[in-house]
């Protein structure tokens, strides 16, 4: 199974730059998710790999073959790229039976009829649709159509599997189930897969690596843990998971290269130390203000004045409100007028409104974006 390589790929639609010169390498057998809000260029990127959009510039390679190369004026037609693709609408042909749909790629490759039937039966069994081959495709439920689309994309053992928001039309329960099934199937077949979604949960659970995109550019590329625990930009921090941001102004450089950030609270002033590797400075400049970023679940609520553990920082606050969410409570904690953070806490601990509390945060969980 080959790699998929994108080099400086660019695509414009009129005035709008949809994909702004991205570089990306998906290695053999890997499952990579393109994640981002609508209009970030993720679907356009996938469609350029499929050959359904022609880039304006750059190079796309599948294996050792270039399928698009601006410099050589090369553009291979979609049908010659040997890819499998699952579309958002499934794109099941309504005038064919399930088996005819699935056999289509084999028919295009002139595979003998008996051989084709064997392969179709095999792949239908794999996706759990054994025996449904002669059903008209329109008689299937959404989940079943989804499986037909997957079977069709896999039946000819393509080099690469492309998936364009394949689960977005399913209801929530089925979506969660299919997520696991997709992952297991991809692992078993060892097919290189590129997956486009705007759903961060899907991206985190499914992928070996996640590529977060925004406005046609790649914001961060990494494993789900890296993306979640160490967001490279404020955009990634905000887009993935829940986030607390505290805006700060004066930022001093500490002797170890980290940042020392004074933070006004209504009960005094704290100095927050951010280790050097957790300072994400735009254009290298750390002056002129920025935002502190802390994941809600990385904050522990303690009674005022409690001794902290090693490596923890203290921010003083006051309980403003509480929301009961069943398995936990969520507190709104005021730092000073107009500045607050949200913190989850176990239901056993109950903090009354107006209680002054200390927030304990490990230094490794505080990030500074400028």
């Amino acid at each position, binding site marked *: 199974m080959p790699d998929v390589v994108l080099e400086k790929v660019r695509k414009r*639609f009129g005035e709008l730059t949809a994909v702004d010169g991205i570089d990306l390498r998906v290695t053999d057998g890997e499952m990579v998710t393109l994640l981002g809000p609508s209009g970030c260029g993720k679907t356009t990127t996938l469609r350029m790999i*499929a*050959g*359904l959009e022609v880039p304006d510039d750059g190079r796309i390679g599948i294996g050792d*073959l*270039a399928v698009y190369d601006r410099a*050589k004026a*090369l*553009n*291979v*037609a*979609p*049908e*010659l*790229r*040997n*890819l*499998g*693709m699952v*579309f*958002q*609408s499934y*794109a099941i*042909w*309504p*005038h064919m039976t399930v088996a005819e749909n699935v056999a*289509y*790629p*084999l028919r*295009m*490759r*002139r*595979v003998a009829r008996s*051989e084709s039937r*064997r*392969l179709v039966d095999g792949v239908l069994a794999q996706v759990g649709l054994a025996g449904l081959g002669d059903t008209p495709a329109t008689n299937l439920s959404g989940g079943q159509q989804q499986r037909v689309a997957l079977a*069709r*994309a896999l039946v*000819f*053992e*393509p*080099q690469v599997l*492309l998936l364009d928001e394949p689960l977005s039309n399913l209801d929530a329960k089925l979506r969660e189930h299919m997520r696991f099934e997709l992952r297991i199937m991809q692992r078993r077949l060892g097919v290189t897969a590129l997956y486009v979604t705007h759903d961060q949960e899907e991206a985190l659970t499914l992928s070996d690596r996640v590529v977060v995109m925004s406005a046609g550019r790649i914001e961060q590329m990494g494993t789900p843990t890296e993306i979640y625990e160490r967001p490279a930009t404020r955009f990634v921090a905000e887009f993935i998971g829940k986030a607390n941001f505290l805006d700060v102004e004066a930022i001093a450089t500490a002797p170890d290269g980290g940042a020392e950030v004074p933070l006004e609270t209504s009960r005094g002033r704290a100095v927050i130390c951010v280790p050097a590797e957790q300072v994400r400075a735009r254009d290298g400049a750390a002056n002129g203000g920025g935002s502190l970023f802390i994941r809600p679940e990385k904050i522990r609520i303690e009674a005022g004045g409690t001794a902290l553990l090693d490596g923890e920082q203290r921010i003083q606050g006051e309980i403003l409100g509480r929301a009961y969410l069943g398995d936990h409570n969520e507190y709104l904690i005021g730092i000073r007028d107009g500045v607050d953070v949200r913190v989850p806490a176990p239901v056993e601990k109950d903090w009354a409104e107006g209680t002054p509390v200390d927030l304990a945060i490990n230094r490794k969980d505080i990030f500074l974006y400028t």
Partner: protein
Amino acid sequence: MSAAADIAKRSLHRLPPGGILSRVRIPVSVLYYLLAAVVAILVLYPVVILFAASVVTGQPGAWGEFTLAGYKPWLGAWDMMPILANSVIFAASRLAIGLVFALLFAWAVARTDVPFRRTMLLLIPVPFFTPDLLTGISWLMLGNPQNGLINQFATYLLGIKGPVIDLYGWGGLIFHSSLSTISLIFLMLVGFFYSMDSSYEEASVTLGASKYRTVFTITFPMLSPAILSISVLIFASGLDSFENPLLFGNPGGVFVFANEIYRMLSYRHPPQYSAATALSVILILIMFSLIWLQWRKLGGRRFTVISGKGYRPNRIALPGPVRWGIFAVFVVYFTLAIVIPLVQIVASSFFPIFGMYNLENITLDNWRNVMNNRRAMTGITNTILFSSAAAVGAVIISGLIGYVRVRTRHWLGRQLELLAWLPWALPGIVMGLALLWAWALPPPPFNLYGTALVIIIGFVVKGLPLGTATMQAAIHQVSGELEESSRVHGGSWLKTAWLIMLPLMRRGVLATFVIVFALAARDLTIPLLLYRGGTETLTVAMLYYYEEGMMSTLSVVAVIQLAMVFALLGLERLTRGRDQRD
């Protein structure tokens, strides 16, 4: 899994390793330019030639010298004013009558509890689909002043001397052309009435206005952009109309643009080509300004009353006499537009002598004679052949235009669509004359003067506007992903078109075929100017029999034409019904 690996390898073989396939690649856009060239030759080229031909002394095939003589009646002298005035009076009165009745019917069918609404909805469009040539001839058989059946009955039975009814001239012209106009306006309007949100009307009634007052203060004003827009189109189609002025205007001395152009070409010796061509150019300019007005001033405006949510059919309850009064108007209308002319023409096809409808004389001789009549059979065969060929051609060309417009972002898409709509602004007689000039010009083998091909080309051009509209709608209905999925999974664009697009668009393709076929099979103007011995169509034969007074033969041929048009429309409806059940 070795088999699968083998397939994968076979797939890999098809990948060009930087080889021939990838280097010698024709950009798809070259095909778009090719298509644009074909459409331009079909549509634009004849118009350009027509403009050029309006300032020469010659005739098709021989240009002659430069002259402005054709425009002389328009320069200083006012010789053409009566033609212009007649045309405006004709188009305006048929529009006015058409609007009154179409608005009444559309409002009653869509918004009120008038009886037999569904029947009315089904039957009111029928006159539009029935060829004007046929009903016009049938009415003239009844109401011409010399030997019209009605006048004969009045003389023999009631002893009245002189004609009681005279359809020659203005009366017959406006009467008969209004019948199909009502039908057409109704077709264009009724959808707007259906989709209008009834809560606007309810609000008015709640505030104390009567039902009838609400119609004039709320319903019609809210639809006025649509009504105005449609009015401009109908006015333009009045200038286009040829059959009615020819049949009713000529004998009564009423000349409008269309029959005047034809008179200059056919009834004068030698034919006055430069005058007719100049008159055609003037007519085109008037049509273009009307269409331009409709697009610029009205076409862009949104009809806000058509909300996306499903309308609530809250019908207005009318008092009994009003309900049945409206229904009676419909019955009279349908009787005049369809029942009388069709019964008359079918009846006369079974009697040896026109008008002597005595049951003892009933015979199939007319039908036998037609089967042995070379002219009639040639006409029937030609109509079927030419119309089918044109329908296939129009499906392919308008399908390609629709595809470029709907599926690609290529700038040519918009231009192609505009080109496809250009014939909409060309009156039939003008199109015929333009094609005559244009295809007599090139050297052989491209000189199509007098061939069947030039008539087929004319039918294709005439079918392009509606063909493109239906094909575009059909392509819209097939999601782009269905097509892309085929491409990605190994289907070339040709295989995708054949195995995916065509089967999924079959209803739209059939509808387009039927529409273009029906338009062609009933068209008189294009073959009338372009036929030579051997390429007459059914309509040309009908006009010949009419002018020769061969009413029995004419009736048979007319019934055959009618059967053909309705059979196809029925077929289209039938497949539509079946698809919806699926």
